[in-house]
């Protein structure tokens, strides 16, 4: 077939129904404090990793809530597990544990992420 050079652009839209939320459900099961995040952004504001890379722990968590896991394995490598995020979180969300559990889960659930 003759190629005209057109391709299909991938939709940026979050398709909630198609997404897989098993990972966040697993994480929330072990670390329930994840649920009470109110998206204030204090964690990302203090995160050193976020100062030097485009890493945002707040956004990572929000995306995970929506079942968006693209590049997740690469993203969590940026976290240095310093715990500053939890220190400033007004609701005491244990984000460091979020990262640790994701590591665990990725092995356990054999997620191909």
């Amino acid at each position: 077939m003759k190629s005209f050079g057109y391709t299909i652009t991938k939709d940026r839209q979050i398709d909630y129904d198609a997404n897989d939320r098993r990972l966040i459900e697993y994480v929330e099961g072990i670390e329930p404090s994840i649920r009470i995040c109110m998206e204030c952004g204090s964690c990302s504001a203090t995160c050193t990793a976020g100062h030097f890379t485009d890493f945002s722990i707040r956004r990572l968590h929000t995306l995970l809530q929506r079942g968006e896991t693209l590049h997740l394995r690469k993203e969590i490598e940026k976290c240095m597990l310093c715990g500053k995020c939890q220190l400033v979180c007004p609701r005491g969300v244990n984000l460091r544990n979020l990262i640790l559990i994701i590591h665990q889960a990725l092995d356990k659930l054999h997620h191909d992420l």
Partner: protein
Amino acid sequence: MSKTAIIIGGGVAGMETAGQLNRLGIEVVLIEKQASLGGHLKNWDRLFPDRRESQEVFDYLEKGMNDGISLYLNATISDIREAGGKFTVILEDGRELSSDALVLATGYDLFDARKKEEYGFGIYDNVITSAELEEFFRNNKQKNLFEGVQSKRVGIVHCVGSRDEKVGNLYCSKLCCVTGVKQAIEIRELMPDAEIFCFYMDLRMFDRHFEEMYYEAQEKWGIRFIRGRLSEAAENPDHTILVKVEDTLTGLPLKMKVDLLILLVGFVPSPETKRLAGMLGLKEGDDRFLCPSDEHLLPNSTDHPGVFLAGTLKGPASIAATIVDARAAALQVAEYLVNGER
């Protein structure tokens, strides 16, 4: 000779103002256009923030309605006249009632959700309003909300008819955020397995206990919050609803299917209030709710001597705030009747 006050509107504000004035020894006439007292309160099931039965509040108010109060139900006012500091209210059936002071307590109307056509209320089966949900709770307490329907996911839409210049309402209705969170918890109690989402722009949990309810909704009940205003809702062939929103916290557009969509309708000024305000030359604000003569210092007085305001005809307010406002109004009226204009 004892003085008389006429209260127009028998909702929370009117009932409490009437009861309070009556306890202060003033003769009270209460005029209500509907067949019964209570106003919107009669349509709600359990109240935020503590989810007590609305009936309890009504019972308290009703106790204040003793013999000293002349009650006119099903009454339509055709005119209000004034001569020599006396008011005469003329009813449609020709009866004339007179008094030394007048209190307007005519309340608010609910926003007509059909005006937000893009949400499909009145067109799609599974789009309802928060007020309808209250009615459901009142009438079918024992039954599962979604009997017959395989409901798995519920969306709750904030700010319907509020904070929206397109429908002419720039203001915030103040109480729909907390109503939404309350209803989310109530739905969760009925359907432990459902996924429940609130679509909000800001959560305005301004009053005592409200923020704690938000916390509880997340922590205990697993209610999910997505920041973004719905752009539209569309019906699927199976009568589920497809909603579109920008998830502004990830910066990505998002779509999802819900089985039931609940619209948190706001407060709007009532045409009846406008009509009576017109007869008395009262002023309204840019938001079209009535304005007292001084919002800080004289929240119940008007520029018209002898005419007072109580309740949500001045804008969105909770029942607790309305009760306080009604008592303040009663005191202002009593003072006026004893000492004259200040």
